[in-house]
């Protein structure tokens, strides 16, 4: 007997047909960018008037556009992005895990209010405060510096929330036993709680990394100087100039997308689970 909940063959065909069309629309621009970045400079674009489908497939695959990147501002921008992202991940993990631990392990006055403020801080999109924050950073004398890009992004309500959820799932007896054995709270946090939380550490690292790797509005405002331009800013700048180096633009854009996508695909399950849990639970 067939499963009564199973759809009819016609419905299944309709479903897969529709999904294929939608998935094609989503993936085609990315696939085109990737292929074009691997084709010889002269084949990247074809004039609209003599378009042909076969022209979308490069005659040969080459890395020449990627090699040419070394002579552009891309290595500098990639270095800036890497410095900013790594510093944010390292500092952000320590600072936010500590706060998450405090919310999970201790009872103290004002805990509920403080936690509501933490949650509110990540429900407010960062873009909303970019301009007043710029006024502050300018008063600090931080415009065009690494600290302008790193320091404001370290404390992160979403990451605090994730760590709190995890640490709250560890029975308090665990900490209690360690206390009786004479361990300090610093030791309990570093040697007991943090090692147990490695899945959260992995997700949080990825989220902090992507937040920096992908950020655009704040770097444009706070550090637009070429010496401090991160990848997103450098690429956007290149497309706004009268463009001749198409190969460089395609390969740098594709590289920036791929470097952001690989960590996402690797940790997709963990990432999506915590994201949705944060939003709906």
């Amino acid at each position, binding site marked *: 007997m067939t499963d009564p*909940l199973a*759809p009819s063959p016609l419905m*299944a065909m309709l*479903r897969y047909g*529709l999904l294929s069309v*939608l998935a094609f629309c*989503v*993936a085609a*621009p*990315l696939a085109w*960018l990737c292929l074009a970045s691997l084709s010889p400079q002269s084949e990247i674009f*074809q*004039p*609209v*008037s003599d*378009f*042909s489908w076969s022209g979308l497939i490069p005659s040969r695959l080459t890395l020449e556009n990627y090699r040419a990147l070394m002579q552009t501002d891309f290595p500098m921008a990639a270095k800036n992005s890497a410095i900013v992202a790594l510093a944010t991940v390292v500092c952000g993990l*320590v*600072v936010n895990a*500590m*706060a998450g631990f405090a919310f999970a392990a*201790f009872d*103290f006055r004002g*805990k509920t209010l403080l936690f509501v403020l*933490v949650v*509110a*801080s990540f*429900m*407010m*999109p960062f*873009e909303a*405060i970019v*301009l*007043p*924050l710029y*006024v502050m950073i300018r008063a600090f004398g931080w415009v065009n510096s690494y600290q302008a890009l790193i320091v*404001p*992004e370290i*404390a992160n309500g979403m990451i*605090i929330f994730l760590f709190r959820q995890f640490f709250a799932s560890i029975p*308090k007896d665990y900490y209690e036993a360690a*206390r009786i054995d004479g361990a300090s*709270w610093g030791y309990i*946090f570093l040697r007991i709680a943090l090692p147990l939380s490695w899945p959260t550490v992995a997700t949080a690292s990825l989220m902090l990394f992507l937040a920096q790797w*992908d950020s655009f*509005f704040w770097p444009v405002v706070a550090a637009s100087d070429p010496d401090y331009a991160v990848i997103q800013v450098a*690429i*956007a700048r290149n*497309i*706004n100039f009268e463009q001749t180096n198409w190969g460089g*633009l395609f390969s740098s854009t594709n590289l*920036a*997308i791929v470097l*952001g996508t690989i960590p*996402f*695909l690797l940790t997709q399950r963990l990432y*999506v689970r915590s994201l*949705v849990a944060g*939003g*709906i639970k």
Partner: protein
Amino acid sequence: MNYSRWTPFLFLAPALAGLAVFRFAPIVVAGAGSFSGMTLTGALEFAGLENYRWLLTDPAFWDSLRITLIFNLIINPLQLALAFLLAMLIFQPGRGIWVYRTLLVLPMAVSTGLSAVLFKLVLDPNLGPLNGILEWAGIGAQPFYRAAEQAMGTLIGIATWKGAGYWMLFLLAGLHAIPASVQEAAMIDGATPWQRFRLVTLPLMRRPMAFVLVADTAINFLFFAPVYILTGGGPNGATSVLMFEAYRSAFTFSDIGRALAISSFLLAILAVIIVLEFRLMRSPEDRR
């Protein structure tokens, strides 16, 4: 358990200090700064309600507000509807579904800035492949972001390309939370698939859908990067949303007071949205 009164605050201090200075202080700065003006020497001085008086009599601000509202009235229901369609299509297990699921969420790993760059290339009027395809199909090349009538639609399309898969994930979680027994009971009572969808699925999805709508609105009220990269607010001011208007006040016209007044206005709208979100996130049982 034994710990001193100060232990919790030692653990909290760095993070709370960071949030206080870099998330909450800017709100105060926006509010306070919106009552000040920049003198010719570059110093800030108190200007009372001057910035707001200017703003409310400035047609550019009203245009920008109108554009932002229209943008949101279209894009948020559109993204919700598409995300819901995708979630319904992906929800039932099936052969190869995970491939579609991965492809559909892929754009969420592409930053907003890079998706704008990507589509600037795809839609290029002379060399872009989409216009080539449209010519080939006999429809003819379109100006897209270069024409006032099409620019807003183009931006909505790009943002939806990036956003639909992301919001689908939240709705999928909502679909998974509907107990299978509820659907089976409806089956036994002889409900058709359409009736099951309309009378069981849809009412039970109200909360996740409301959450997506509200959270999406919060993000789209602050839409910026694609405007900056693709249109610069044009053509003819057609895409000058509020966030871009605020940016331009600060960096093109050096009018920090106006920029902060618009920021304060946006923050007030966001405050309302966040309160709504908090109410949606509380479970129905503890809502009185």
